[in-house]
């Protein structure tokens, strides 16, 4: 039941959005701005997935406080999902990429409404909470107020709960009446959680401009240059490490060779040895094979 309501809602929303000139201009690459609703919603996503965490300062150190918003993760995420999938359909602009940030933001609102309807939210929605996500470069709170959807008003944990609801649904949204695009609601969850996390924890923030062609991108590969690397201790990308300990093997087996560097188990004689041996080309017999677990046919 909820599924069909979401379907209907998304389809109607998409139609109404798609019929506005603004979106058409955006398709043509002329429209300058991200839709304010999309902007606030993506700030709310980034803030929930990689929040600012003052509490971690004492526990882990001051470098663990800053979150996704401090590095404009939300802005890049919008660019990334809008440029992320291409259908080569000419009316979608020269690259044929399918802009999906706006529909994603609307799907999240629907999920938020479902959460509220079920009474599964732990805190009350709040407009002020949403407005507090705005950055210094965003339009004023007064201008943005009307663009704040139900998702952005939820508390951080409730936003994650709303995202989790998406796993229950198959959402379909259709960019035009001709080319039906079905997206699983789960894909939305994957983009706003999984991809958000991958982008944040990767080297992404260190580029001067990731939208440049690969040969013109610069990356300092300095552990200090990327906020998330400072938080994970990742030392940056390296050409190599003198980290070899040897090769595992037993005293009388073929695998390891040379001196033992360390012993894994004295009774079985498994050790890490200096040199490599090789695997044994053994005879095999599968006659006694039994399925450890039941097997269904077909």
């Amino acid at each position, binding site marked *: 039941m909820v599924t069909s309501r979401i379907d209907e809602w998304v389809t109607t929303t998409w139609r109404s959005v798609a019929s506005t000139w603004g979106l058409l201009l955006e398709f043509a690459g002329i429209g300058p701005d991200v839709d304010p609703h999309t902007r606030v919603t993506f700030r709310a996503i980034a803030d929930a*997935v990689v929040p600012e965490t003052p509490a971690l300062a004492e526990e882990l150190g001051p470098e663990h406080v800053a979150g996704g918003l401090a590095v404009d993760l939300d802005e890049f995420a919008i660019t990334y999902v809008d440029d992320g999938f291409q259908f080569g359909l000419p009316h979608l602009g020269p690259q044929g990429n399918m802009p999906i940030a706006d529909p994603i933001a609307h799907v999240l609102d629907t999920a938020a409404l479902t959460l509220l309807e079920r009474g599964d939210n732990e805190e009350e929605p709040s407009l002020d909470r949403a407005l507090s996500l705005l950055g210094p470069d965003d339009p004023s709170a007064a201008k943005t107020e009307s663009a704040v959807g139900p998702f952005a008003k939820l508390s951080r944990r409730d936003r994650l709960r709303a995202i989790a609801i998406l796993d229950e649904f198959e959402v379909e949204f259709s960019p035009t009446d001709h080319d039906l695009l079905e997206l699983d609601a789960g894909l939305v969850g994957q983009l706003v959680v999984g991809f958000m996390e*991958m982008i944040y924890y990767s080297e992404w923030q260190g580029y001067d401009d990731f939208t440049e062609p690969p040969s013109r991108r610069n990356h300092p590969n300095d552990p200090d240059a990327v906020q998330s690397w400072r938080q994970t201790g*990742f030392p940056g*990308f390296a*050409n190599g490490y003198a980290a070899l300990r040897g090769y595992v093997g037993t005293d009388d087996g073929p695998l390891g060779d040379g001196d033992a560097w360390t012993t894994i188990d004295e009774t079985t004689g498994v050790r*890490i040895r200096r040199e490599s041996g090789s695997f044994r080309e053994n005879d095999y017999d599968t006659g006694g094979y039994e399925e450890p*677990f039941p097997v*269904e046919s077909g």
Partner: protein
Amino acid sequence: MVEDSYDAIVVGAGGDGPVTAWKLAEAGLSVLVLEAGPFHGNEQWPNPHEEPGGEASSSVEDLSGDLLDEQFTTREFEMITNLVFGPADHERGFWFRKFPGDGAILQCAGVGGTTLHYTGCHPRAYPASIDEQGHWPIEYADLLPYYREVEEMCEVTPAPVTAKEELFFRGAEAAGWDLIEDLNVTEPGYRPQPNAIKQPDGKLHVDADYDGDFTYPDVEGDSLALGNIAGNPHPRGAPFEEKAKRASNVSFVPAALRTDNVTVRPNAFVTDVLTETPRGDTPTATGVEFRDTWSGSVERVEAEVVVLAAGAIETPRLWLNADLPANDWVGRGLTIHFGDNVMGLWDPDDLEETIGKPTVDQHEGQDIAARFDYPGVGMLQTVGTAPGIGAILGFGASASGFAFQNDPADAPWDTMGRLAGGDLKRLLSDHRRMLQILVVSDDRPHQRNGVTVAPGVADEHGPIPVVNYEPSEGDRRRRDELARIAADVLREAGASHVHRSDSPPTALHVHSTMRMGKVVDEACEAYDVDRLFVADHSVLANGVGGANPTNTGQALAARTGERIVERHF
């Protein structure tokens, strides 16, 4: 230059296609390999993601280690974006496939195919999965000579031990498992990975106080820096064929080009298989139609034999879109090694005691260098990742919601589910003291699982693939058993916290959608179309027991190459 006709056309230069191309060319046939993605490390395409570059490459002299160094930056986010299945043009997004839930299919486009991402693990199938599970019309023994040939080409050797492998081996031994030293595995136990990665330079031993550069020729072979999922150009400075990771672009493509009988045409997406049908007879393949992904122009090429090697999603998609004869098993029987992630986290003092230093440092060593085998159930492997890929693979998705919504009570893991927010930040602050184990289960082919195309949902190359995957009860139980074993091994290795993702179905290994015995015969020629062969993981009759599939896919592709020559030339 691409000619009008060839003895054979191979569609896809991924893991397996180049193997068949090499075999055919060695036999003296002229071969055109059409690849949808770009050709990295080739003088014809100095900026493969920015300009259309040359048309085709027919000479091993075109291969350039320097260009590979430049293009394979090993920066994880950039390389994922460059390699994942999509057009070469960096301004355009991935090609879309519909996959259920919040899982995904991870495949690459480009010469080398998904082996550009792969971590080089080349075990053989479990013999019982071929001889006892009832799916295969041929025997394991039939594959043995081809395994040996592939293992030699790929320089498969026992993987080196660094801190993270020692930690795993200690845990596995303490948990009571035996060390396996065999190639043909019939009993459960742990072993080093048989990896298609040149072994590291002995200078890189921790006791050798090496302080030189990690570039060629100072070091030869692997340099023990993570980077296989991101392409892996190590050791930097090495000529193309001296790169440590023997992905198919480094192993089989040069060998194929060296015959002077092979032309590789990248940026060429095949959209149709051409056939002729003598009255009342089965159709015969006569060539293909392809579309240039930069210019959009369309060309046709003829051949005596067409070999589909576009991978287990695109090969059935192409069959279905080309309107070849209907067969109930085209696209059906998909196995993906229904997987999971179990992560261990250690206290520094405990690490000091087990491995002699306070960190695991998963970024050192080969990405995946230790494994646990369990014929009939599947396998486990340790995975080192940079934090971005680690986050999305290990924590970004779950079939059971966020960790804070679950109470695992007396399960063998302390937490389960997706991680985000403060929980994620706290956990990843310990990135250097954690180790993930990838659970890879022996899921079985079921007809409901597979690839269809939905008319109306089309991109520039026709209706897109729509994938269905729903594991069976048995598949789930095998996976749960492996997850329990993984948790036990981590605990025995001293982990203070164990987290299970309960990942949604996610496809890193994709097979058995054009199964031998169902869609193709024992030589991998289609039952319903003459002179049309399949040489990629889609012909595997099952998921080879859960072992990493590429050794078996390539062994079979080598065998298919020989069968084609015997049958038709």
